[in-house]
């Protein structure tokens, strides 16, 4: 008995030692300094020990630069997230019609992800400049040319975000679609359900947990659009795309640590809340899933479509089992 316990402790210790380098690394570069960042954000100034409470937060929240940056960032979130989710789901559904045959397209869609924006920046300059290709086409169509590098830069950034990140989401959606048991569709077809019914009654509910994660990834990737914004428009872009990243970057340039710390803490709070909300929901449903969600998706479908066809019911049984495994 004694020996068994000591073996177990030994194994625990080995496991801990294996993770130790990674833990030390994250502690040194992220966790501990993040603590310092938080403590800086409530100081009067860099050298002083004086605690000023939330005064710095109030200052930053009231500053015009931060407000503009926050407003633009949320606006970008609001427009870009629905766009990318719908676009990538549509493309995934198209590809899913015949995955083997359309494999090559999947490759094309993922490619921009690996491409450095700086390597194609000339192309985008030529397309979006005042005298560029896009305005040329617009004028030929009898439409007004627009200022794509100025007040319309928002849309350019959106296009770049979609261009770069849609492929990632398509791959994730394809994996999600693949996890939906085929029997469900067969059962639905037997009952004469059209593609719309199959989409809304089977596909969407079944891939909901995946979709939530894809949303999280899309949010994470949104923050990377700063690269595109910086490379295309420099550190002082048009007001319409001055984002939270520009705010941070410019404060780095001025070495304003206090404002930087406050900014980092605020972004952290928002991310933490968003991701926590999305993944927390998942947890709740995950717990309820074995009781509630499974009968709801799988057997609702069963009731609607199969009406006692034994073969289909067997299919649903295994579908439910898979659905549970998926969590």
């Amino acid at each position, binding site marked *: 008995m004694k020996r068994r316990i000591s073996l177990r402790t030994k*194994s*625990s210790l*080995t*496991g*801990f030692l*294996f*993770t130790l380098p*990674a833990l030390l*690394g*994250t502690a040194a*570069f*992220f966790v*501990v*300094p993040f603590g*310092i*960042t938080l403590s800086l954000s409530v100081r009067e100034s860099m050298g002083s020990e004086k605690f000023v409470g939330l005064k710095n937060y109030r200052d930053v929240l009231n500053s015009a630069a931060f407000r503009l940056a926050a407003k633009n960032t949320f606006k970008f979130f609001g427009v870009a997230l629905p766009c990318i989710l719908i676009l990538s789901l549509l493309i995934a559904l*198209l590809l899913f*019609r015949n995955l083997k045959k359309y494999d090559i397209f*999947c490759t*094309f*869609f*993922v*490619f*921009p992800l*690996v491409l*450095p924006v*700086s*390597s*194609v*920046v000339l*192309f*985008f*300059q*030529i397309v979006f*400049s005042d*005298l*560029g*290709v896009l305005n*040329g086409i617009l004028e030929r169509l009898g439409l007004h040319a627009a200022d794509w590098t100025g007040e319309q830069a928002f849309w350019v950034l959106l296009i770049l975000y979609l*261009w770069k990140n849609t492929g*990632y989401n398509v*791959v*994730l959606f394809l*994996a999600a679609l693949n996890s939906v048991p085929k029997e469900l569709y067969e059962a639905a077809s037997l009952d004469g359900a059209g593609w719309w019914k199959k989409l809304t009654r089977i596909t969407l509910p079944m891939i909901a947990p995946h979709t939530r994660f894809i949303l*999280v990834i899309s949010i*994470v990737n949104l923050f*990377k659009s700063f*690269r595109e914004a*910086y*490379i295309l428009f420099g550190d002082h872009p048009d007001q319409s795309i001055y984002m*939270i*990243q520009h705010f*941070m*970057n410019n404060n*780095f340039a001025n070495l304003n640590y206090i404002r930087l710390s406050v*900014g*980092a803490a605020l*972004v952290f709070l928002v*991310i933490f809340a968003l991701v926590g909300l999305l993944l927390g929901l998942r947890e709740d449903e995950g717990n309820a899933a074995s009781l509630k969600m499974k009968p709801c998706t799988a057997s609702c479908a069963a009731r609607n479509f199969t009406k006692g066809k034994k073969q289909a019911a067997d299919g649903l049984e295994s579908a439910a089992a898979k659905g549970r495994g*998926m969590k």
Partner: protein
Amino acid sequence: MKTKKKTGDIVTLIVLILLSVVVILPVLFMVTHSFMSDHELNASYGKILTSSKNDEDDAPIEIDAHLIPQEPSLKGYWDVFLATPDYLGKFWLSLGLCAAITAGQTLLACLGGYGFAKFKYPGKNLLFALMVLLMMLPLQVTLVPNYIVLDKLGMIGSYSAIILPGICSAFGVFLLTQTFRSIPDSVLEAARLDGANQFKTLLLVVIPQAKAGIASLVILNFIDTWNMVEQPLVFLKDRLKYPLSIFLSQIKNADLSRAFVCGILAMLPVLLLFLHFKDALMTGIENSALK
């Protein structure tokens, strides 16, 4: 019924082809333009790309965008690859940074992933959750803490300021934990019964089984490092030290053929990696999903 499906297939194919063309167009454009002569590029795009420095020049107001070179030339390639060492120097610098970060990160991730996936110890799940949270944080949050540490260590302005935080990023540990979890315990048990110690088990049993997962980490990490913008911008104060990923946008496009060929230079390594490890990349993306 059958014809309906057929029309659907044709429409799908057309839509997919159109979308692919739009997606690939920037790359195609860069490749064909890298073979154009300075004269042709200047005549076509001088107005846009070289700003209005020389207004007295007879550059036309209209730009003339076309894909096929009319005056094919290899001068850009000659300039970038053979005549001046600057560009290739940047290229090797970027490659070196990527290699250092990817190697360190993979080593750390193999150890950490093994520990997290195959052992139990008190507080492990909490620590892993912390890793996941860190992985999701955007650079805008982590740059500030990083800067504080690097400043204390006196590393700001040197390349170690980019390499060290890159190695310690939580992403690799997360990805390999996901991968190692799928290796059955019985395999490890067998190795242990054969008298292999933990390091041997990791090296000779776990890692060979997880080759695909590790390859996907390597390629994802390499790409991310190759394309980095924020870290060098903040940690390297000296513009001359910038790696290729930022350096390109700083070249003022006086010499257009050179600028286009530099674009090709920047996409070359990731293009080769992508074509070679496409499947590993797809697996990596799928594994990065929380399950």
